[in-house]
């Protein structure tokens, strides 16, 4: 079956430091990977969309300078939260899209929960 793993599941970092999180698609080739953030008591916001061999597209309020993403192949993506502060805490979700036939499905990982002290 198709699964998406994220690592680490939980992490704590000091204010002003950086933290890298990983996303792995297993059992399928992900045509795109999207990173979302859920801030406390809120819904999920799209940070950026990464498609292999295309430029990574960041949503408004999110930048490459703050959230650099690496997407080297069809099964792996990583994102770093640089210079993390309190407002960066939350659950970071990776969604990997699988194309099959005339449909596609987006699978989400369990998320990386970031706590900033």
């Amino acid at each position, binding site marked *: 079956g198709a699964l998406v793993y994220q690592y680490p599941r939980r992490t704590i970092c000091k204010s002003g430091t950086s933290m890298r999180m990983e996303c792995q698609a297993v059992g399928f080739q992900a045509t795109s990977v*999207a990173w*979302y953030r859920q801030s406390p008591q809120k*819904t*999920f916001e*799209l940070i950026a*969309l990464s498609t292999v061999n295309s430029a990574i597209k960041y949503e408004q309020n999110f930048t490459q300078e703050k959230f650099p993403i690496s997407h080297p192949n069809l099964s792996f993506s990583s994102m770093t939260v640089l210079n993390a502060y309190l407002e960066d805490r939350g659950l970071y979700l990776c969604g990997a899209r699988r194309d099959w036939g005339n449909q596609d499905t*987006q699978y*989400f990982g369990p998320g990386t929960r970031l706590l900033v002290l």
Partner: protein
Amino acid sequence: TQTVSQSDAHVTVFEGDSVELRCNYSYGGSIYLSWYIQHHGHGLQFLLKYYSGNPVVQGVNGFEAEFSKSDSSFHLRKASVHWSDSAVYFCAVRGTGGYKVVFGSGTRLLVSP
């Protein structure tokens, strides 16, 4: 612009009751509609998806949702809830061929024993 509206922030029912969680969307094109569940402290778990065909789709754990083009709705239902169904439920929409999933604000379901 895609928007998803979940009008009820909180819904409380008793175990064994039926429940309907409301979702309305706005999008000018062909879409996928999905429901996800998030238990406290966890990530998103897929419940069901609609793309085309029968407007009533069955999901896991006895959940179903009905698509209505005329009402621009995709309400989630369950005939008899269990206390373990207590969680936050998110409705989501994505354009076919598109990549961005837009989530609603979520509905917190509390099932009392």
